[in-house]
């Protein structure tokens, strides 16, 4: 269980997060959605332990958590398999074993033909799959994803979402996914948490009961519309005081 209690954070003089309470249970998929600049990436960094919050408590008793960033962040001088095996190498897994595991993951994520390619020889979608494989390789049970598909075009994004859903379900991995796309959150989350900016705080929380397989496009748009009819969500998404004045 990952638990954030009354977390607040200042970035310089600016208040970025205020009174955040958030939990992620084992195997649960939580989507954090909000307009850009609402502090959701900072919140993810705090959850990952990369940033220590100014206030509040973070407790994480997952066995291992890893992060998939918005950009793939692969080592440009390492081949695909070595990039996937990076976390294993850091753990001290012997080379033979980590390459075997990396190869299996690459095949599972549809990168079978490209074991020896360098990152720049791969398309953006493939690079992001390598980053996903790298996070899965260390056998994490909590995955923290920071707008992982925002750089992909619509078709690839949908494909990547399907892939992620399958991977998470098969391995029973919990996830905290940050996105600014309501439909993405509604498609991937057991629970959708809406944040609003300045200072970043949680304004709405909703459990999505419908099984993942039945969340078709019609459902997503309908659910997004319903969500936007909530006054707090509408205010966060549709009208930004700071943007008007800026």
């Amino acid at each position: 269980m990952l638990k954030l209690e009354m977390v607040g954070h200042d970035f310089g003089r600016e208040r970025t997060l205020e009174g955040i309470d958030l939990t992620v249970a084992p195997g649960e998929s939580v989507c954090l959605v909000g307009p850009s600049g609402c502090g959701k990436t900072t919140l993810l960094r705090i959850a990952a332990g990369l940033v220590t919050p100014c206030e509040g408590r973070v407790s994480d008793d997952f066995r291992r958590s890893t992060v998939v960033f918005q950009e793939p962040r692969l080592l440009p001088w390492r081949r695909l398999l070595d990039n996937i095996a990076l976390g294993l190498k850091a753990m001290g897994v012997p080379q033979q074993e980590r390459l075997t595991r990396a190869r299996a993951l690459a095949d599972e994520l549809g990168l079978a033909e490209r074991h020896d390619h360098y990152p720049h020889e791969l398309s953006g979608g493939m690079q992001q799959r390598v980053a996903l494989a790298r996070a899965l390789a260390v056998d994490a049970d909590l995955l923290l994803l920071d707008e992982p598909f925002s750089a992909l075009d619509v078709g690839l994004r949908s494909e990547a979402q399907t892939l992620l859903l399958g991977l998470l379900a098969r391995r029973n991995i919990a996830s905290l996914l940050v996105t600014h796309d309501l439909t993405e959150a509604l498609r991937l989350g057991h629970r959708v948490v809406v944040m609003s900016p300045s200072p970043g705080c949680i304004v709405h929380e909703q459990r999505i009961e419908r099984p993942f397989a039945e969340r078709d496009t019609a459902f997503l748009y309908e659910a997004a519309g319903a969500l936007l009819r909530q006054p707090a969500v509408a205010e966060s998404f549709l009208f930004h005081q700071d943007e008007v004045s800026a």
Partner: protein
Amino acid sequence: MKRSLMTRGVETLLGWGGSLTGVLLFVALWEWGSLVYGSFLLPGPRDALAALGRLWQEGAAAAVWATAWRAMLGFVLAALVGTALGILAGLSRTLGRALEPVSTVLLGIPPIAWIVLAILWFGSGSLATVYTVMATSLPVSFAGAQMGALTRDRRLQEMADVFAVPPLMRLLDFHLPHIASYVFPALITALGVAWKVAVMAELFATEDGIGAGLAMARVNLDTAAAMAWIVLVVALLLATEHGLLRPLQRRMEPWRQAGQRGK
């Protein structure tokens, strides 16, 4: 991405042809200058080649060897010390602040001043030359390594934090490959500096070597011999750069290579 062998062969030939055109143009200009100013002031390429043949028979190989080992010893020492210090200065802010002015001062001292100092300190001879080469090429490799260490990608550092990458692996897999891409061009520059400074230092400090040969050519007013030495120095510099450093870079940075092929 993959192209046929034939297209690649033609492209290589065209590339070579391009370089060759440049060289031939230069030689033609040289020949023209020699025709205009007379072969005493500016001996033509053929005179220079003839003089080179003569020098070779008189034992220019020994001079080349003498210059080569002085230049290489100075260069290697400067590369090792400069790169190591540069990396440290880039990784540690305090050290960087302390060493940067020193490097700037060293860069500002003209090579000729180093030669005077070196002769005063070590007397005439190889040591003065090696020292001068080292003192002048060290700041170049230092600056390259420091720039490399300073421009590390913060996003990759954060990724390393996420995967709890241990310090040694961080150095070998994250820092060094990035730094190397800055160090290699700096080393190629430093090598050019080392060669030129070695020859210049020999002019004043030693009895043998290419520099001493040039001094002899000056005494004898033998312009053709001077040109011959210059041709030799340039040829050796190009040979070391393209025969040693660039292949080494290609070997150590295959990921960059693949990128060039892909274009």
